[in-house]
């Protein structure tokens, strides 16, 4: 087995037992990137030189017995997350030359343990998309089938983990951007509860929805990374003070008597792929065999979640993206007057989907339309939250498909924004409610495409949903 194919847990053990060095492990990942990135386009930046330097430093920590859980582990980061001294473009031309002087808090925590930053992952520009076709650096291809999308927006991160170009990745999930590509590429992806992980240093998309989470090869790996990054941050006032659990410890034990809710709306949806439904039903049976109590539940607001999301998110986007104007950083179009500097820099700097969302949000928030669109959607968001609150008084967790279908073809949904928005139908409700959700591989279709199952739980139930996800059988 090649070193880059190891899980985080296995890599930790090998480094600790001095079976190989961090330099060996890092070289194995760099080699894989060199071999595969020309086809997959999963990386915008590869930190070859600095990664090897960081790996050497990590090996010194091992020599001095000062290693921590993530010391020497090569990881990659979505390009919409700031990394000190490393180009962070957000996959958009307006920041194609932007090198942040600081690390996002979650990245700082990981790097302070001596982990090795191996590169920056391609994504839909600033997280706008569900297929990774809205990157201004070209689409990411699915490692399982190069004619299919990797999913989005964190498609590069999902492809990098699935294709063993890194040991784990850090990405961002606003409305499904970690979970959906995780399901398309066959890796584990966790959207934490809003407020669990710091958002400081994340390029903001929709501030009341944005979360940062890991993408890993196994659920156990997920628990290790989450333990390292979760917690309150004085630089993000929306992080919660609740203590961080020992997530890995919580994975053990059985699920006898655990109440698993099956929301009928997620299985009755028009357009759900028959093989996806069957693979999920197989997992429900599996959990039942392990002693879980399966309960049919209803979340009637499910069908309104995408519409709610596509009012609120563009509204927040239109406000947040005011900062990207070519004035203080990034690419400035050299115009004679200030208005043209803004308008031209944004014209050349954003892809069409980002422009569309800014325009939708500008419209929804403009005088005369605010109540009809923004306030209405905020009220429906309350009803979505109430749906989950009620259901979590009846069950402990929910099991659903992550996506109604496996990875679709490149270009297949590119010209119809609503068809692409609807790809988020099973992942956007948790985003609106601020609850955690994890996508875990649960088998492949006859065509060999991965299918993910999503486990959702009440706020701050990351430990519990990882435990349940860990019981899902891969094949």
């Amino acid at each position, binding site marked *: 087995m090649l070193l880059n194919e190891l899980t985080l847990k296995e890599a930790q053990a090998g480094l600790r037992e001095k079976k190989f060095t961090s330099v060996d492990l890092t070289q194995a990942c760099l080699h894989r990137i060199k071999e595969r990135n020309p086809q997959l386009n999963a990386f915008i930046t590869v930190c070859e030189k600095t990664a090897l330097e960081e790996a050497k430093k990590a090996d010194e920590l091992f020599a001095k017995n000062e290693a921590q859980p993530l010391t020497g582990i090569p990881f990659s980061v979505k390009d919409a997350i700031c990394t000190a001294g490393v180009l962070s473009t957000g996959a958009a031309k307006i920041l194609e030359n932007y090198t942040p002087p600081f690390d996002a808090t979650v990245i700082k925590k990981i790097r302070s343990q001596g982990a090795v930053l191996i590169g920056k992952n391609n994504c839909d520009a600033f997280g706008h998309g569900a297929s990774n076709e809205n990157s201004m650096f070209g689409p990411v291809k699915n490692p399982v089938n190069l004619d299919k999308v990797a999913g989005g927006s964190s498609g590069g991160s999902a492809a990098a983990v699935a294709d063993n170009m890194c040991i784990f990745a850090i990405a961002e999930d606003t409305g499904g951007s970690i979970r959906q590509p995780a399901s398309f590429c066959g890796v584990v992806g966790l959207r934490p509860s809003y407020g669990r992980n710091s958002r400081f240093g994340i390029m903001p998309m929709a501030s009341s929805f944005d979360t940062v989470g890991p993408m890993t090869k196994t659920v156990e790996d997920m628990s290790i990374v989450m333990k390292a990054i979760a917690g309150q941050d*004085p630089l993000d006032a929306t992080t919660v003070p609740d203590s961080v659990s020992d997530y890995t410890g919580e994975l053990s034990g059985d699920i006898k008597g655990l109440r698993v809710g099956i929301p009928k709306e997620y299985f009755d949806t028009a357009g759900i792929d028959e093989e996806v439904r069957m693979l999920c039903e197989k997992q429900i049976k599996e959990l039942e065999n392990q002693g879980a109590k399966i309960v049919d539940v209803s979340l009637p607001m499910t069908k309104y979640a995408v519409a709610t999301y596509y009012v609120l998110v563009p509204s927040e986007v239109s406000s947040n993206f005011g900062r990207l104007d070519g004035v203080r950083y990034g690419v400035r179009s050299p115009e004679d007057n200030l208005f043209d500097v803004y308008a031209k820099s944004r*014209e050349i700097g954003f892809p069409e989907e980002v422009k569309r969302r800014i325009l939708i949000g500008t419209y929804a928030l403009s005088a005369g339309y605010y109540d009809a669109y923004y306030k209405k959607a905020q009220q429906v*968001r309350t009803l979505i939250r109430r749906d989950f609150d009620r259901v979590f008084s009846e069950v402990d967790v929910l099991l659903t498909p992550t996506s109604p279908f496996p990875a679709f073809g490149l270009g297949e949904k590119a010209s119809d924004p609503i068809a692409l928005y609807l790809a988020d139908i099973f992942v956007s409700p948790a985003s609106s409610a601020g609850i955690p959700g994890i996508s875990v591989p649960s088998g492949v279709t006859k065509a060999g495409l991965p299918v993910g199952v999503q486990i959702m739980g009440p706020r701050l139930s990351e430990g519990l949903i990882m435990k349940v996800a860990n019981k899902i059988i891969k094949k």
Partner: protein
Amino acid sequence: MSLTIEDVRKIAQLARIKLTPEEEKRHAVTISSVLEFVKTLNEIDTADVEPTAQVTGLEDVVREDLARDCEYKKELLSQMPVVSGDLLKVPAVFSDSEDVI
């Protein structure tokens, strides 16, 4: 709700984005369809429902009001598109193009 090309131009002006004529045409169609799609929310009775602006329930999170030095002054300056010494240079805000520095 159907947006005209004129509507799109007006929104783009407010949003400070220049669009090509082709983009204006495409956005008029696609944004109209999104607005039509989100109209489904009107099927729901939301009378007396409080709007949700945030999900954590945290309130009045404050820190001590202390001045802090910027650790990265030099690096931030190096990211600016045009500088003059330690100052960011931009076209004049209140003047015609002739007066641009």
